[in-house]
């Protein structure tokens, strides 16, 4: 086929040559640990009944990373989550951040009680049901309540995508379909390292907590504003973009999800036993100036005694 180049708008040509970018984010509804919303039991454990729920903070960062692709590459953003019906709140919050056009909730009693492997199976199946073939899938670093950080990489591996962890920034070359990303590697006992890697799409990215999008040019900032406004409009009418899938609609293998698909179980939960006191504390009345004076003298002694040694 021969194109009459002059009759086609140049942006369109660019789009034909380079193709579009589809990105997805997997997110989680979590207890809201912010002051005023979180409630603790007298023994220091989380009071799950009183504590409100919200989009997890690491999920929010992943949504910001997806929005970066929207602003920079005009990407189409989809979001998926597994959870109870009320998790639509988290989808709406993530849409407000990322300007997503597609919101998926995977919700079924059969999914309940899943460990990370059983959860990853649901998320993988859901991502494959999203419109368009995904080029990048983002997840947060880890959930604030479960804190395993396993679900992201496990979903990525099930999808067969290249996994990039602890990503702090990235850029995509739409022409070559390659991604360049910086990763922060922290290991005990050695200095932190920033590693720059390159990989062909598709990739699965677990985003580092320190990730921050930066928009340097005027045109990027204008797109940023435009899409932010669009996101607000969409989030107000999030139900238009929202779809719920149960196990049957997803077409998952029922032995691979929920409890049957979970190798691990929580066997018991106990209070951490009080460690035998390692130090014998002297108790001092904090309102007594004379006593505070003595405390400082002891502090001074501690600092100087060790210097001599």
């Amino acid at each position: 086929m021969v194109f009459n180049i002059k009759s086609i708008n140049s942006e369109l040509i660019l789009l034909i040559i380079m193709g579009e970018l589809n990105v997805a984010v997997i997110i989680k509804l979590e207890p809201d640990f912010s002051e005023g919303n979180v409630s603790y039991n007298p023994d220091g454990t989380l009071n799950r009944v009183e504590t409100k729920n919200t989009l997890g903070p690491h999920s929010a960062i992943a949504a910001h990373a997806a929005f970066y692709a929207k602003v920079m590459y005009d990407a189409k953003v989809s979001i998926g989550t597994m959870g109870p019906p009320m998790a639509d709140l988290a989808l709406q919050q993530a849409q407000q951040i990322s300007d997503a056009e597609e919101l998926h909730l995977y919700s079924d009693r059969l999914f309940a009680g899943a460990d990370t492997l059983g959860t990853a199976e649901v998320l993988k199946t859901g991502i494959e049901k999203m419109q368009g073939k995904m080029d990048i899938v983002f997840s947060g670093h880890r959930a604030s309540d479960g804190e395993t950080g396993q679900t992201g990489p496990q979903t990525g591996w099930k999808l067969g995508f290249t996994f990039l962890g602890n990503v702090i920034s990235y850029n995509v070359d739409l022409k070559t379909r390659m991604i360049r990303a910086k990763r922060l590697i922290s290991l005990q006992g050695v200095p932190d390292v920033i590693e720059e890697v390159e990989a062909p799409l598709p990739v699965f990215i677990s985003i580092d907590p320190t990730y921050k999008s930066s928009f340097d040019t005027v045109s990027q900032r204008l797109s940023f504003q435009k899409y932010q406004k669009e996101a607000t409009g969409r989030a107000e009418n999030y139900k238009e973009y929202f779809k719920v899938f149960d196990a049957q609609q997803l077409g998952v293998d029922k032995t691979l999800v929920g409890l049957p698909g979970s190798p691990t179980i929580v066997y018991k939960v106990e209070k951490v036993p009080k460690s035998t006191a390692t130090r014998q504390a002297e108790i001092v009345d904090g309102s007594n100036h004379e006593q505070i004076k003595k405390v400082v003298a002891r502090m001074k002694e501690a600092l100087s005694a060790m210097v001599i040694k």
Partner: protein
Amino acid sequence: MAENYRHLYVVIEHIDGEFLQVSLEMIGEARRLLDDFNSKYSSNEKVVAVILGYNIKDMSKQLIEYGADVVIYSDHPELKDIRNTIYTKVISQIAQDKKTLDEIEPLYAGEIKRPRYMFFAADSIGRHLSSTVLTELESGLASDINQLVIEDIEMSHQQKTGGSKEIYAKTLEMYRPDFSGFLWTTILCLDNRNPAFKRDYHPQACSIIPGVFEPLKQDPKREGKIIEFIPKIDERDLRVKILSRKVIQSEVDFETPRTIVSFGRGVKDEPEQNIKLLEQLAKELNAEIGITLPISKKPFLVSQALDLKYMIPDRVIGTSGHKTSAMLYIAAGVSGAMQHVWGMKDSGFVVAINPDENAPIKDECDIFIKGRMEDVIPMLIEEIRKQIHIIEA
């Protein structure tokens, strides 16, 4: 009944020819667990260290000296840098390689399919590697473990056993502290014996928090078996290219200062004002400021300057962050969750400021100042100015 799973595999991490400390700690713990296991079950299962890299053959012997019975190594230029995809593939190949399993214990040749247990480090490498390897092996994983016990467990479980009573012999109980630090959850990885969806879940795997377990002393007299595994490398698993690696210096320094002032959720009544007070206190003592893990999740609104400077993961003292052995450690409004205590317990002299006398930090300090930091810190600052700056000058 023949058993299809034997041995404990430990995935070793190393950088520039040096083992990461956590690798030696894992071998130490593996050794202790299996010594007990072998005497309890009159068995002879092995601690197997798995090491990947390039020009690493000489490191294998050292792993034996640190307590491994067997070392399986893969030496290949493509394994020089740690890349998740190819590392996941090769470790999974090793875990399922019949020939290697036969070589470990010829007595059981042909019977063993996979390791019984598997350890990874809970760090930037091992966290992700354990997740992808266990997905490839389709088995269970528990993360951030700080205690391990092996026991026979009798249980009836609606899903796992279909409600009937079963004995799960030689089960690894994996203990992990939850995010609050006050609860300890035990995770088990169990085969599905329910006739409706029978499936084996082995190895039973976990990632282990660095710094928790003691390594063994290196003993040159210790002997063991070293086995080379030739990896099957598929071009498609080499798609990630590493372009550069840059070492970065953290702006937070917990090594040099003699004093660390840390704060926890106790700042909550007046977070902005309290953090500024702590800043002043730290300045008087020439101290670095540390935080507890919950603070890094930004539970309060404070000015952006304080937020960006202090409520960041880099300042966390505890299992998710740094460990300190400061001469003087002042914990203000810190309850004393076990993760935090792990990070500060090696300090010289510990002062806690807390209104609640029942807070666990009381058992971890030398002086417990009962009171609100709003009231106590100004007095401390006043006294420090009178007493301490003289020797600092």
